[in-house]
């Protein structure tokens, strides 16, 4: 599974990092998110999906 945050859509709501702090990091300057690893570590797939569901802007892109 691959995951990324679309930087043009993310507005820094921070819910992804709240849901899955091992998968998403936030910019110090504006709180916008990025995926720490493009490849989701084994066993973390459901957390990645949950983070994507939680994103108010639907900025998280998952590909299986």
């Amino acid at each position, binding site marked *: 599974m691959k995951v990324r945050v679309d930087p043009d859509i993310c*507005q*820094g*709501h*921070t*819910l992804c*990092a*709240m*849901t899955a702090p091992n998968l998403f990091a*936030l*910019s*110090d*300057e*504006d*709180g916008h998110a990025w995926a720490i690893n493009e490849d989701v570590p084994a066993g973390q797939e459901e957390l990645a999906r*949950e983070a994507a*569901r*939680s*994103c*108010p*802007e*639907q900025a998280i892109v998952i590909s299986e």
Partner: protein
Amino acid sequence: MSIDETTAPGGVGQDDESRKEGRRIVLDRHGPAYRTEFVDWAQRLHAGPRIAWNDTHGGYWFVNGNQELFDVARRSDCLSNDADISNRRRGYDGINIPAPPKEQRGGVIGGFLEMDPPRQRYYRNALNPYLSPAAVARWQPVLDEITRAAIDEKIESGRIDFVEDLANIVPAVLTMALLGLPLEDWTVYNEPSHASVYTPIHSPDYPRVRELSMAMGMRLFESIQQARANPRPGLLDAIINADLGGEGPEDDMEIVGVVMLLIGGGFDTTTALTAHSLEWLGEHPDQRERLHREWETLRDSATEEFLRFYTPAQGDGRTVSDDVEIAGVRFREGDRLWLSWAMANRDEQVFEDPHEVKLDRTGNRHASFGLGVHRCIGSNVARAGFKTMVKAVLDRMPDYACDPAGTVHYETTQVINGMRFLPATFTPGKRLGPGLEETIATLQTVVDEQRLAEPITVRKDRATLT
């Protein structure tokens, strides 16, 4: 239809009717019944029309469905927040419906929430490094200390008003600190910031509230002059010196508008969220006990759930800036519309049992901080303040009981879904330190000496309290 053909043959009138056909409602957002009948309205509108035409206050689109709100709110390419009070552009009316008459606004607009990009983006870029999650985390020791002192003022008596004695104070003092204003000035800004939201224009108290607001404006003008003469770190300094695409703010009125946006956003909203949540937890002691016991795992989901359920800032207005069709509605340039964050947060198509509070709710993509480029810039401050206050109450007065007879909600939810009073009793406890006044004086020294209000780009370390 025949009338339309007579009055406007083949023209705008007929087209206008067809755009609104099947979508007309009459909903007075400024009336007290909207607050008490909110759930009924939500259920009715979510069955359709999910984008309604509301024949009140001049007529405007009322976007209430979650998916529809998502589709509309993020279209900053065809929606405008502009409050063009000097009629220099297209004369748009900003984010309030009904809009206050331009000549009564005293030359002040609602900061960058009533601006469009790119100017709006320049402001946010200048202020984000003071308000990002990392920037806010530096303030946690200060937040803890203000909260400790506010509770200490009441802990021995066994009585507290959660609004007046806690939830008004903590966000206000922290906002002063973030701005780089004297912490003790929180009292100057406190009452007018809340009262101007909950006092209707016809209230006998309105003239007094207006006087307080004027005094607050005067103090702010003085503070801007002082900040120019003796620069101090903080949001005010960032606003005064903001790079707005090669120029600065046009005048002090623009600066006042931006500061008032941050004060309005920083004060009343977090107060509203905290008070409502403490009221709910008081009514559900088993859930209160559970939240306290499982704080580490429930803290974040409970915070987002209270945000969803109570939606402190209920919605925002926009003006359609280009003809466009979204979600089946043909919007026309100049149409006004209301983005109801509150309604979208109760949509059962997205939230199971939307009218229930579930502290462990997952997938909670609520719209309480707005959606799109205008997302609440202070959301991280709000969350930190809320969590700090609720945790301190759970720790220090776990058996509190609110007094429904003394509880007062704002009469309407026209701006903020807020509370004026939430009195409670609890088993008295011991003070842990000095009172509020002494604590604020001490914290002022800490803020100044450690230059805590610098942006994260300048100062990375957390505050150190000895």
